[in-house]
């Protein structure tokens, strides 16, 4: 399965794939409809991310996702070079509680649309 294919599946059949990729992922108790995720993704994708800001904010991510990406079999996925939309979608899924890992949920609780757009802009430009 190609990466973008698997990410696409991840977004839509989350329950099936997520536990493999995310280890501790579990559905949030109050399961928001996927509409809410879609709406936020649509809004954020319109925002031109500030890559400098994204790079600065990514300082928090690399403590777990590693500067140049994690190992293949790592429970923490590499995120460098993901498609912008996939990055935005993943972050929004955590922020809405659609997808849940306490570390990611807490990290995204403090990220506004601007921050998500900037992180996605930066990470999508990184080599893998």
């Amino acid at each position: 399965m190609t990466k973008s294919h698997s990410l696409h599946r991840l977004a839509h059949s989350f329950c099936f794939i997520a536990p493999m990729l995310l280890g501790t992922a579990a559905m949030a108790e109050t399961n928001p409809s996927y509409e809410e995720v879609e709406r936020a993704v649509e809004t954020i994708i319109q925002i031109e991310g500030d890559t400098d800001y994204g790079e600065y904010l990514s300082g928090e991510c690399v403590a777990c996702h590693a500067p140049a990406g994690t190992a293949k079999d790592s429970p923490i996925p590499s995120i460098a070079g993901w498609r912008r939309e996939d990055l935005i979608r993943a972050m929004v899924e955590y922020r809405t509680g659609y997808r849940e890992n306490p570390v990611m949920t807490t990290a995204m609780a403090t990220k506004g649309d601007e921050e998500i757009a900037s992180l996605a802009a930066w990470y999508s430009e990184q080599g893998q």
Partner: protein
Amino acid sequence: MAKLTRRQFTLLGATALANVALPSFSFAQNGEKPKVVIIGGGAGGGTIAHQLARDAGDALEITLIDQDEEYTTCFFSNLYIGGLRSFESITHNWDALTRLGVKKVTGTATGIDKTARTVQLADGSTHAYDMLVVAPGIDLIYDSVPGYTEADVEIAPHAWKAGPQTKLLKEKLDALKDGDQIVMVPPPNPYRCPPGPYERVSMMAHVLKEKGFTEAKIIILDPKPKFSKQGLFSEGWEKEYPGMIEWIGPDIHGGIKNVDAKAGTVETDFDTFQGALLNIVPAQKAGEIASAAGLTDDSGYCPIDAESMRSTMDENIFVIGDASIAGDMPKSGFSANSQAKVAANAILADLTDARKFPARYANTCWSLIATQNDVKVGAQYEPNDGKITSTASFISQTGEEPAIRAANYEESVAWYEAITKDIFGT
């Protein structure tokens, strides 16, 4: 001397500075690059050296001073004690950073001349800086535990700075026989790694259990009435090591009266406890160099500006990691790494044309109770009223599924690999 404003500096551009002499510029003169000196190459100092070298290696001269040739992480040192990691796997060096252009100096910083902007080393050499980062971690206040002295660390190790102490503690642990008792005295707040002493006890219990010991015991004589992740640890100990671990708080023991390392006793108001192994962790303060340089306040730690990690005592000095007073943030490797990034951003904004962004901090601490039983706590932070303040947080729940705890452990292993790459540039 007139200081160039940030705007003028930006207009000049950082690279131009390398070639153009600027007589009125207060940072770098005679065409030299601005000098950043970092004291301490651990979680905080290593990260900032890596960050600055990566982002502005051509525009800055970066010197990293550490007293040692290599660095053993305190994080995961409990896993070494538990027999789950090798000592080599938690020991790192600064070679990759030197390949990025960082100048590593092995020596002990003994003083800082804030007016001349120089750092003095024990060997008599001095190092000039435009910006200084102080990241020496902690020092131990041995006599905070009555009867305990620095000389006693060879008999009753603290192992709160990783290295020979960690090996010594493991040797002593591995030599115990069934029926022996361990007495641990954790430190009072604030100290590095709030859940650390309790993870340590868990890993010691793991070793005793693996050996099939049924009579060995671990007594914790805590100066604190409660401790980090207490509910999670208490539940975990009961499940994994029933009857082996006893935690005694100050309302029961009434205070530590005397430690006699040679006799292997800890005397409290309540009783005298005998241990075949004593693990005594005294109270802590910012690494000695911080107080020697007048960067600490009455608490023994260094006040900083929450927006930048800049010392409130001197605008050309930043303090990061355990030595700093970081508000709600615990003293952890993760916190030190996070603070390093905020400080790096502020330093680059001062010395190059980089933009300054609002300070944002994060921390997650994983603790291993037993193999495959790992709990975590974490938070986001930002400045509020001059103090680094928690804005969102989580903690593992009691009664969680074993699968979640096992996944936490896998996650912590991935975190260790990632953060050590981020600190040492490997």
